[in-house]
């Protein structure tokens, strides 16, 4: 992404999904929520691919989902984990102002976005020490391993430009998670990644192999026949862990849409023990960024450690595909002993990765009255 120069101001206009996909393919890392395919997964919303042009050159892109305000033909323009622009500039207004003007022209009363910009990182040792220390209640109470100048600069500028951070209280935010857990893969071999895991993870991976858990991965059309099996196990998991499962049709659409974009954009993994499905997961990769997206596991035969086996296979495949990062997605920032979310972070910490904080989601009200109405509507929902 080339920074604009004073002589060539940036122009924002709609682009075709082919042009958008071309741009995504040229980037090292773009969120899968910012691929043209994601618009097809979220088909209930109007969408638009945006391009930033410096001169004639496409230097940035974003996927906008338009969420309609009830009863009014006005929209919240939402760019989840995007847009993909050069966030590492000292001067963001030339990038953000034309976007806001364009979206306003399309009927938006406000813009919501989640810049894919990291502000802080905590490595495994730090997070573990924090969990062990009763005085530490949140990740933020711990000295981060890294505090990003560029991330802070984005936050300072957004605030200056009238953007408002979405309040994150305790658990998960309403939108995309601000805190995620990632295993860095760049420059590391399989052996190094395995050595970085805690003893329990390593033991479980070994145990699954010894017990004869067979992991198989599927991509393209091969996923479809297996998807029903995944979904049955996923519904079972949802009942056990008390969350609302998505319907099978959602996964069908997701597999079809993402799979059509790149042959291995989305993969299904199964772990079988003596023919019984004990674990199944969905992995997504865009360029050098690989995600663990959905997971399911059986209540029986937990001792054969099918979950660890499929995770390890996903990580190995990500390394083989040249990924820089294996992303286990959202965590809460809580490290308090009595918090129900602690188990989740403990499981993820076992991978030897790092807790990562992004700048979070920000709103720009374009029409103060409608934005306020929307805010009230959301808070009462």
């Amino acid at each position, binding site marked *: 992404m080339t920074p604009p120069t004073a002589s060539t101001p940036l122009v924002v206009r709609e682009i075709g999904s082919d042009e958008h996909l071309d741009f995504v393919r040229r980037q090292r890392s773009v969120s899968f929520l910012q691929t043209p395919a994601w618009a097809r997964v979220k088909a209930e919303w109007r969408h638009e691919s945006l391009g930033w042009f410096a001169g004639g050159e496409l230097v940035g892109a974003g996927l906008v989902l338009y969420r309609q305000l009830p009863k009014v033909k006005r929209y919240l323009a939402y760019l989840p984990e995007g847009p993909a622009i050069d966030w590492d500039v000292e001067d963001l207004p030339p990038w953000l102002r034309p976007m806001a003007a364009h979206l306003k022209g399309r009927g938006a009363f406000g813009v919501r976005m989640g810049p894919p910009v990291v502000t802080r990182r905590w490595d495994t040792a730090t997070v573990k020490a924090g969990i062990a220390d009763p005085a530490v209640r949140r990740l933020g*109470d711990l000295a981060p391993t890294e505090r990003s*100048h560029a991330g802070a600069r984005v936050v300072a500028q957004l605030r200056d430009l009238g953007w408002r951070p979405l309040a994150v209280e305790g658990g998960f935010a309403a939108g995309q998670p601000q805190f995620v857990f990632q295993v860095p893969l760049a420059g590391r071999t399989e052996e190094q990644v395995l050595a970085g895991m805690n003893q329990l993870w390593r033991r479980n991976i070994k145990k699954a192999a010894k017990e004869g858990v067979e992991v198989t991965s599927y991509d393209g059309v091969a996923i479809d026949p297996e998807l029903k099996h995944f979904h049955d196990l996923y519904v079972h998991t949802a009942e056990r862990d008390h969350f609302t499962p998505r319907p099978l049709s959602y996964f069908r659409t997701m597999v079809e849409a993402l799979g059509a974009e790149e042959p291995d954009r989305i993969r299904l993994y199964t772990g079988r023990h003596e023919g019984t499905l004990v674990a199944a997961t969905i992995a997504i990769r865009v360029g050098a960024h690989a995600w663990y997206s959905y997971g399911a596991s059986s209540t029986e035969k937990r001792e054969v450690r099918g979950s660890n086996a499929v995770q390890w296979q996903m990580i190995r495949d990500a390394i083989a595909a040249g990924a820089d990062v294996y992303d286990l997605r959202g965590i809460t920032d809580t490290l308090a002993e009595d918090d129900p979310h602690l188990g989740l972070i403990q499981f993820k910490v076992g991978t030897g990765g790092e807790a990562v904080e992004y700048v979070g989601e920000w709103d720009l009200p374009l029409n103060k009255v409608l934005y306020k109405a929307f805010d009230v509507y959301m808070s009462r929902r």
Partner: protein
Amino acid sequence: MSLTLTVDGDRWRDHLRSVATAEPDLVPVAKGNGYGFGLGRLARRAAWLGVDTIAVGTYEELPEVAGRYDGSLLVLTPWRPFGAAVELEPALARRVVHTISRVEDLGDLLGRQPDARFVLERTTSMLRHGMTARELWSTADVVRAHPKARVAGVALHLPLANGAHLSEVHRLMTEVVATELPLDTVWVSHLSASELAALRTAYPDFTFRPRTGTDLWLGDRSALQVTATVLDVHAVERGDGFGYRHRTAPKAGHVLIVSGGTAHGIGLEAPLGDASLRGRAATLARGGMDAAGFVRSPFSIDGKQRLFAEPPHMQASMLFLPHGARVPAVGDVVDVRVRYTATTFDRVVVD
């Protein structure tokens, strides 16, 4: 025969030590009149406390403290390319931590002294000295061009509003982090203990150094006593004339001459900053008394504040004591309530 500050030494030192123990990153401030104690005495006390840095207000104050304390000397007034800042003795320059509040001053300072040590000041809602966020960010380029430069952190001078600063400091901290310099020390003023604790929790990788004057030196008022001496006593009848302006006594009583006048700061009130309705009403009432010829003085006899018989003189004041009150003798001492930062004592006695 003087306006005297008497300090209960044990009590005062106990207080100083307890503040320094509770706050290991304390930076004592020794500026102006030395909070009534004098700069030299504060410098020696700071050395005794064992702190590594003290703050002075101006470059002119440096010689007063430099010989009595041998740690680092932070100058709170921003460096400018003129005056005492550029006439600094080379021997002293090595110990000084400058405050930089303009990007152009940083280039200028480093041009003159490439290994200068300095803090970068960010403006706060107080809007006194300091740089904007973007100006702060741009200092990284200047520092990069001077490899010997020693950045000692960021300075934030917050307004006096206890308990209300946190959101402002968080915003400012984001801008500090955004600067591509190792700014891991933040020099702050006027933060409450709970605000400091909250910041240290949120930024455990930063060192917060509170610059403290009043709460340190004057934090235990019960250790301090200010007295004036009765120099003369005259009985007056109603209508008797006295004083520079030859006023007449409103009724029978005594005119007392006590030590302490305008040269000490008596009668020259530093603004208290009391903006409440009650405070302003009190100011109006004092003005009213002034018009009628009765002004409350800071001198009190037997616990009762007495009226000025006429405006204070340069080194003494005349008080009016109405008939019936106990009349002190020449040589007796009377209590005085003063603003320590605006008072020059003739003597400071530390037991």
